[in-house]
């Protein structure tokens, strides 16, 4: 009986690891899908010279359709919305900037086990950078 109880306690302790691994795989997939959606929007903006409203809307719709837990208000989207042009010299003022973030709701599978509160058990996935416009100045 004693051994059985000790074994049971060990199993409960060890359950933390597969649960955590499963959560991390799930979060990693979320990050990868998020990156792919942002990448597509960024490449579209490169050809348009800026983030058109249709590109922003498509980006948000794609994110919401991929991640049902997201709402429009959860998506942080700070992007260049004025037209930029291709230049003959590198000029940061003519770059198309983007900073897009979505929340990751849970990063630790058993937060109570490690003494982590629910408010601390979250993170933000962020993709930020710039691309250069392909649009020629006429």
């Amino acid at each position, binding site marked *: 009986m*004693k*051994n059985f109880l*000790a*074994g049971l*306690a*060990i199993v409960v*302790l*060890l359950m933390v*690891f597969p649960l*955590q*691994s499963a959560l*991390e*795989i799930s979060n*990693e997939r979320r*990050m*990868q899908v998020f*990156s792919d959606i942002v*990448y597509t929007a960024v490449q579209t903006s490169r050809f348009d010279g800026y983030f058109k409203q249709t590109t922003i809307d498509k980006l948000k719709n794609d994110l919401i359709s991929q991640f049902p837990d997201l709402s429009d208000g959860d998506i942080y989207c700070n992007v260049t919305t004025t037209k930029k042009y*291709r230049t*003959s*010299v*590198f000029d*940061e003022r003519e*770059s198309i900037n983007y900073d897009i973030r979505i929340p990751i709701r849970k990063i630790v599978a058993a937060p109570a086990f490690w003494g982590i509160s629910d408010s601390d058990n979250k993170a933000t996935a962020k993709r*930020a*950078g*710039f*691309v*250069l416009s*392909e649009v020629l100045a006429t």
Partner: protein
Amino acid sequence: MKAALFGVAVFFFSLFVWLFCHDYNLNHMYYMQLRTAVEEASVAASMFTEQTEEKEGRIVFNQVEGHEAIKAMLETMLRTDDSLNPSQESYWQDKITYNAYFYDDSNTIYPLSFTDSDTGFTFEVKRPTVIVTVNAGKARYTIKGVIDDTINIRSAAHEIVGY
């Protein structure tokens, strides 16, 4: 008592295995971001061409501006300072180094077989092309001495098509 000791040993063993997997997966994720950064750097570098040569129907890269664009891209995407030293919030720890190869109408007879000496990346240059190789250094591993000596290095090429 024996069972409890065995349990504690198994717990720590599991902790080590999980830590390794966690660090490995994290490194994989940032390695994929490095891939995107290198691709974007090669695209950015290929955007700058000599206007006078272009009027003659030749594509010749402006290498000075190309290097400016590569550095700016790496600074932003890998979160470094202007000397390419990673900032506090960057995943990377070592100074970022890169090599850029510009093949254009001024210095290349097409086709040219390119092999990167650092990565073994091979590419047949058929058109004006910029190839960038970035070495982001070692990954962050909590358990030292297993595979943490492996460096993260990546190459990407961008060619100008249809001119």
